[in-house]
């Protein structure tokens, strides 16, 4: 049957083209993901390295243990705060600066664009060093400025109540540049005649922003929210280089906790925690699509 054969041939050709990606994906992505899932159902520890299959199947034990793990619960809370406060903050700052740059409020546009984007391309290690200087309780710029107006600044990174907020502000500063560029592109895609029409109808700047900019920017905002949300849920670098999760675990994130658990050699347990984080990320993305996605008017 020539038709059948032709179909087979096409399938083989198709798979041949797809093979390089498929093989890489299966070996380095799919397999580890499945292996990690299997691992999360066992009590595999680093002491089992020589005989990784000689472990016990423990079912969902690791997952139930997570719920009772004081540190995991604390880390989940910290991460939640970081996302709930950090994502809107970063997006608001990015949107404000993008709108400012787009509407010509600022002169030296190119300079500001580069300036705002620089943190996004700077190494986190360099940023950490600078911010630790800035936030130093004795010699830091911030507390010295506060001192000028007679305020005795706190020990930002050393105090349980200010450490996480400090990291949120730092992350917003570090990440808004990328979103700003994305939003700027989105803004430039909005036809100018809409604004002209609105101006003729007597709409003010704020009304234009709410009536034209926000609705038309919705897909861009959704993209920004999803990307930032995924990134922030995996919070790791900032506490790792700035606070080591301290003081008193007030900046411990879920990813950091997983990292620690892998370090302690609790492979099965850490894999379970990773899966919980994975599900949380999927959940957050779905939620954002629901909230910000197109509402049947596309």
């Amino acid at each position: 049957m020539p038709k059948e054969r032709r179909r087979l041939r096409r399938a083989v050709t198709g798979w041949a083209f797809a093979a390089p990606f498929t093989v890489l994906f299966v070996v380095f992505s799919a397999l580890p993901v499945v292996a990690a899932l299997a691992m999360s159902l066992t009590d595999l520890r680093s002491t089992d390295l020589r005989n990784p299959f000689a472990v016990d199947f423990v079912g969902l034990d690791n997952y139930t243990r997570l719920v009772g793990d004081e540190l995991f619960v604390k880390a989940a809370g910290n991460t939640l705060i970081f996302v709930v406060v950090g994502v809107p903050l970063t997006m608001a700052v990015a949107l404000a600066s993008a709108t400012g740059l787009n509407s010509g409020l600022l002169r030296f546009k190119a300079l500001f664009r580069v300036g705002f984007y620089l943190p996004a391309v700077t190494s986190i290690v360099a940023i950490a060093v600078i911010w630790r200087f800035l936030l130093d309780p004795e010699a830091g710029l911030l507390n010295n400025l506060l001192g000028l107006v007679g305020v005795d600044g706190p020990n930002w990174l050393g105090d349980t109540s200010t450490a996480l907020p400090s990291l949120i502000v730092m992350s917003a500063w570090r990440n808004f540049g990328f979103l700003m560029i994305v939003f700027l592109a989105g803004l430039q895609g909005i036809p100018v005649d809409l604004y002209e029409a609105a101006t003729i109808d007597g709409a003010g700047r704020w009304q234009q922003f709410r009536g034209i900019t926000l609705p038309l920017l919705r897909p861009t905002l959704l993209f920004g929210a999803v990307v930032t949300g995924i990134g922030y849920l995996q919070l790791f670098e900032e506490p790792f280089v700035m606070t080591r999760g301290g003081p008193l675990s007030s900046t411990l994130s879920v990813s950091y906790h997983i990292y620690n658990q892998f370090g302690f050699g609790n492979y099965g347990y850490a894999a379970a925690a990773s899966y919980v984080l994975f599900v949380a990320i999927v959940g957050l993305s779905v939620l954002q699509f629901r909230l910000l996605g197109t509402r049947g008017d596309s």
Partner: protein
Amino acid sequence: MTRHRRLATVVAIAAAMALAAGCGRDSGGEQDTAKAVGAGKATGEITVWAMGTEGEKLAEFAKGFTAENPDAKVTVTAVPWDAAHQKIAGAIAARQTPDVSMIGTTYQGEFAKTGALDPTPADLFAKDSYFPGAWDSTVVDGTAYGVPWYVETRGIYYRKDLAAKAGITAAPKTWDELKAMAKALQTKAGAKWGINLQPGKTGSWQSVMPFAWSNGATITDGDKFTFDSPAMTEALAYYQSFFTEKLAPTFLPEGQLEPDFVAGRIGAFMSGPWHVGILKDQGGAGFADKFTVAPMPVKQTGTSFIGGSNIAVFKDAKNRDSAWKFIQWLSKPDVQVKWYQTVSDLPAVQSAWTDPALSGDAILSTFGAQLKDAKAPPAIPTWEQVSAAFDSEVEKLAVAGQDPATTAKAIESKATAIGTGS
């Protein structure tokens, strides 16, 4: 298409579960016994992994060994400390280990439990020639794996000149005297802080456990943790009192200790031998006369912490006998002294300390004497995790003012939840 994908996922998961379910732990219990090492000189290539400075300097140093054993060749791979645990763990999983590796004392329990380390042949190494605390750190479930290579311990550094100003002429010998000295340094000698003790964070157990050990507290009894004891609570209360009485800072930025000590803002601190060099560098000319080191103050005993590193042979070693001979050479007293002169690692072999290179130095002699009464935590695979829990409770104790008895109970319950990994 979707049905295919779903099917594939189901199959993969089922296969993985079957694999996981089909295998189980064997009950274990088999005792490792050391095999004898053949006589004669070492031959062939001996591959060695070492971390940090040791890794950089060992290749050159090993030429002394190959001069005595012309048929042998020592190949050293320097491994950065950050990557060491990962690299060794990976090598064990792949059964591609070197013949010999330096093993951090905190890795010992974990790697010995994997069954990857070769038991120490008793005919080559005499247990008594090492510091007892150091030897204990190689023993897992009653069997020694590897030998101590170098050691370090903790003492109390203090400013002699400031102490004299405060009317203190002798080193503090008891807990009360240490407290009194910290107070005097602060009130009479103008130090902002009488003493610096680590207020939690990674490794603070190394500062707390010496006080606990000195008070007779223990970490384990068999497979059970024994953190929740009156002796531990009392030691924690003593440790906490330095913070509640504002004698010690609850927060000190990294790198601030040394300049503050040099400037006299901190009168004393607890640390190991490496600080001698740092202080001499930072203090400049003449500062060496202004400070000294006191051994741990006595309660029931004056026990300190013993750290350092072990060196071991892997079961999968290709050149096992020669590997052990290389370690035997490293353990010779005169080689240990030469190694000290090369990288400042303190000898783990007791008889090396009679060498004038070590016994001639007052501060080193203090550390040398302290090493005879110094303990290491039990070599259990979960120690890193237990100690991290310990550290976070110490932080609550020192910084947040958590009650000592509550702290001891919390450490005990967290440690028990983690288990001894046996």
